[in-house]
């Protein structure tokens, strides 16, 4: 336990004495264990502990957030005293302490792997990727592999009597290969992760397959032409293609945006916001998935939330303050990077549900367009849903057939317009890991979708 029951009780009482309507404590201890393999050896490690306390006082919808690295009760009481409001007047509310309950794992499991064993399997994993990649081609210049294990322990208590303790394990890798020929240099990239323990490096990830993927991509791109430029139909690939929905629409469905009137989805509940073939879901309960949580960072049990059903907007993504501001029921989506951030409404595992079209059928429907096979990151203006996303790799479609390989394009558009231009939804859904940055920091999320055919997007390739 990070803070004793007594300390929890005294801090919450102190907040109530400041006449706060609601007091919450988020205590965190996060073990960081990152290893970097580069230049054919273990190059660096990042080992340590992030630890601290966040105390939130709510006065109506007004949020006061105070943080410290000290776990001493006197320091935390003094921290609350730095906030001057309503000082001097005692609360009529007496907080009744309750012992912490451990969140029982069901779909997120963790076991402690002996460090000798985990070190050996991680090293073998990283060495295999580097070795196989370099064996595959003499064009390979550099292979980098990062493996990470983060173990976050949180204690959450509030003035409504909630008091719990939760453990969240995150195991992941990033693999990158740089290849060079006489004229160009290109990169192949792959990442994966799961909410589980280090056994993934023994029997979860396949290093030889990862090596092949990153090497193949870096070499393929050396000979790729630049993507065409202009407006055209685009097929967005399954898996990480879902990043567009996440960024351009998902953020607009968070009550952090909705309550501030900063979303194109304000006032759209029960209205048609997307093509009728689109159903979108945000689900925190997928087994071991990167964006899953048992309870959110406000201590609420998380859930599966249908956001859009057959094109109709059904729900927003709601945290406590979002609920107070809008009246919508909370969805177990209050999340934060760490104790350094007050929680806000955030996505978990967000995806567009499978439809019934095949990829081949979509390609056949396009006279001239782009099949974006591998998407990079992007950014969005939350108030308008205007977005831009990188296409790392794609194929030109001519007369219903896949033709030359292309690279170096951006897709731009407005989220709500794009949702209405989705003509076909594939039957090949896949999920992919990501890390989402917003006002409560960076949190692990999953994005996903089947292949989607969008009737028209601006493709920023090279004009001739």
């Amino acid at each position, binding site marked *: 336990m990070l803070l004793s029951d007594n300390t929890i009780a005294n801090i919450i009482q102190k907040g109530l004495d400041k006449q706060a309507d609601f007091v919450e404590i988020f205590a965190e201890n996060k073990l960081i264990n990152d290893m970097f393999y580069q230049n054919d050896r273990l190059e660096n*490690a990042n080992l340590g502990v992030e630890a601290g306390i966040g105390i939130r006082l709510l006065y109506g919808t007004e949020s006061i957030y*105070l943080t410290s690295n000290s776990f001493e009760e006197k320091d935390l009481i003094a921290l609350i005293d730095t906030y001057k409001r309503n000082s001097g007047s005692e609360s009529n509310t007496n907080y009744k302490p309750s012992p912490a309950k451990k969140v029982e794992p069901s779909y997120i499991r963790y076991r402690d792997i002996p460090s000798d064993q985990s070190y050996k399997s991680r090293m073998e994993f990283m060495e295999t990727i580097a070795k196989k990649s370099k064996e595959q081609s003499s064009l390979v210049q550099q292979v980098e592999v990062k493996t990470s294990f983060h173990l976050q322990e949180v204690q959450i208590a509030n003035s409504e009597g909630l008091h719990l303790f939760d453990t969240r394990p995150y195991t992941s890798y990033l693999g990158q290969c740089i290849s060079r020929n006489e004229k160009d240099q290109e990169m192949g990239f792959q990442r994966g992760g799961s909410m589980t323990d280090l056994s993934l490096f023994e029997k979860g990830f396949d290093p030889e397959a990862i090596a092949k993927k990153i090497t193949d991509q870096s070499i393929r791109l050396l000979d790729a032409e630049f993507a065409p430029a202009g407006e055209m139909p685009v097929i967005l690939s399954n898996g990480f293609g879902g990043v567009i929905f996440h960024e351009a629409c998902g953020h607009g469905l968070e009550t952090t945006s909705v309550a501030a009137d900063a979303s194109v989805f304000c006032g759209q509940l029960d209205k048609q916001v997307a093509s009728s073939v689109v159903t979108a879901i945000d689900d925190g309960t997928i087994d071991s998935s990167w964006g899953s949580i048992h309870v959110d960072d406000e201590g609420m049990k998380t859930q599966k939330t249908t956001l859009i059903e057959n094109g109709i907007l059904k729900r927003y993504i709601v945290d406590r303050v979002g609920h107070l501001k809008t009246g919508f029921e909370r969805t177990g989506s209050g999340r934060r990077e760490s104790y350094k951030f007050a929680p806000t409404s955030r996505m978990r595992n967000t995806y567009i549900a499978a439809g019934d079209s095949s990829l081949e059928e979509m390609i056949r429907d396009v006279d001239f367009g782009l099949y974006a096979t591998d998407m990079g990151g992007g950014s969005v203006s939350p108030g308008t849903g205007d977005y831009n996303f990188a296409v790392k790799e794609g194929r030109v479609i001519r007369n219903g057939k896949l033709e030359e390989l292309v690279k*170096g394009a951006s897709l731009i558009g407005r989220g709500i317009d794009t949702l209405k231009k989705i003509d076909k939804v594939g039957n090949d859904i896949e999920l992919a890991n990501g890390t989402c940055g917003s006002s409560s920091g960076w949190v692990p999320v999953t994005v996903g979708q089947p292949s989607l055919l969008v009737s028209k997007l601006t493709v920023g390739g090279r004009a001739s």
Partner: protein
Amino acid sequence: MKINKEKYFNKAADQSVDLEILSTKTESFECSFQKEQMDGFQSSNSQSLGFRLLRGNCEITSFSENFNEKELDKAFDLALENLDSFPKEYQPKLYKNDSSANDDSNLFYKESPKTINIDQKIEMAKQLEKKFYEMDSNVTAVPYGGYSDYTSVVRLQNSLGTNRTSQFSGYSIGAYPLLEVENDKVMKGAGYSSLQYESLNLDQLCKSALDQCQNALQATQPSTGVYNLVMKNTVAQSLIGLLVGHLNGKQVKDKKSLLKDRLGELCFSKSLDLKDLPMLEGASGSRAFDSEGFDSRPTDLVNAGKVSNFLSNSVIAAELGIKNSFSAVRSTKSNLSVGSSNIVMEKGDKDRTQLFNELNQGIYITEFKGLRSGYNSASGDFSVQAEGFLIENGTKKAAVKDFVVSGNIIDCFKEFEASNNYHLAGGSMRVPDILIPNLSVAGK
């Protein structure tokens, strides 16, 4: 909490280990308003301590944010246990740097935010939101933005006797107003940071954000084609930032830089001069010493188009066989690496209007959106969403948006022309407007 650092230096000495301890302590404050109600108030105290252990050709780092002695012991012991698993190609060393020159410089610290009354700061955040509604009746919300400040102390000590301390502080305001006109919505932002509270100018910030919104509301999509472009200095800064990545010795050593093996070669237009200046008045990247404790000093990176130096630290310089540029960077949580301080590009002779005249017909780019994700660092290719104005016969015409500019970062600086004006509002770059011919634009 008082830390007994001597204990760790003694423990290290007992194990024949050289030890460096980097510690930081930061206090920060931020406040924002929405719909005339205080929406957020955050006050943070944070601290972190990082150990860097060296023995023979091995080096490792570890850190803790919990200063409880037991937790610090754990972090130290973890590093010690794993030290031998991290051998380096070149033997890393610690250095005795007992200079304290410029440690107290007012280049990066002028006044403590504690001297400003908290009510004054809250009022600043309140007025920031209010001003937008007063200045433009089409503003429907100011969803993001507010006031923030910080002060931090960084201390670097090592077992050879280096002991240097610097204090940093800063103030910022920023806002993203949302405007709605005839069912069209636009949201644009502006930010300003300074070492002095008095320099924060709400009127200027609000005007800048609203001007951008107005332009975007009127903007149309340009036709796809190849254009000559003038990049506003703030946009040119972001391109130079990408280029500097290829002048980083760590990237060169790791075989990722496109300028690898090109030291001393003419790679760019002879008009290109780039310097790293760590002691620059008013610039946010200024620092008295680098993360190995060496006094900071200027470095010529590109001279008349020739690559004259790569940024380096002692280890990278030795590995590459180049002079150390004393550009070591590291946080308590990271390993020793290399980074720029303030990048300054030499100005040209002409003002912006004269560049427009040279353009005759083209686009003046005022904003890039999503450059980080639209950039391929391996190939140097970029494809990035942009906004700006069409230029015809040397004058600004219609605003344009929803288009993508594509090119290659190395090729961009083979032929360009620089203006004579810098953007000076905070930040760590001094870069003029630049005219780049023949770039691809994807629009309608």
